[in-house]
């Protein structure tokens, strides 16, 4: 069954990729906002 070249659930796979991209964008935004505050350690 596996690796027979075809996707079982292409629709959900697309949604999943959209999710991952959103995730990364929001994560990077927070990394930027963190850099804007005073230095702290």
């Amino acid at each position, binding site marked *: *069954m*596996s*690796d*027979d*070249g*075809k*996707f*079982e*659930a*292409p629709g*959900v*796979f697309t949604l*999943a*990729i959209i999710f*991952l991209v959103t*995730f*990364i964008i929001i*994560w990077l935004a927070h*990394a930027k906002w*963190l*850099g*804007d*505050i*005073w*230095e*702290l*350690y």
Partner: protein
Amino acid sequence: MAIYEPEGNWWQPIHKDEKIWFILALIWMLVSFFYMPIQHFIGKQNPPTESYRVSAEDFDGLVEGMVKKYQIGTTGVDNDVPLVQPNPDEPVFLRASMWEWYPALRLEKDKTYKIHLSSMDLLHGFSIQPINLNLMVIPGYDYIANIKPTRTGDYRILCNEFCGVGHHTMVGKIEVI
């Protein structure tokens, strides 16, 4: 079907799309994990790591000592919170209690201060606005934050951990010159 016992050996290889998704997700998770230790070396904003036990009395003594030594006035007519301009080479003590941050501080831009935070009574939340820098202040513990203001201006310290009915009036002041 997920509500019945699967027959026989269900330990089978994973389908292609699930395998690809699994790998992509795993890679991203590892990135966001290793960011944390790496940020401690390359980053300029990390949670402070130095803390000690301290009694309310001892800490209060240190605060008053610093205020005596470095007070340059009060914060104004409507309130008489001492305004203190500490020496960047010496520890700074900021006291949280119901419901005030004591004293008010005047700091110099781009100087690094060792700010000791502790509470006299309940938990308090040290929250510098508008930059939104948040730390916990716990009674019986001294949390030492090395803070370097990078912009001048007039800042506020809010309390963002519930500390009773006066919680919303607990606002302190930091000037950066």
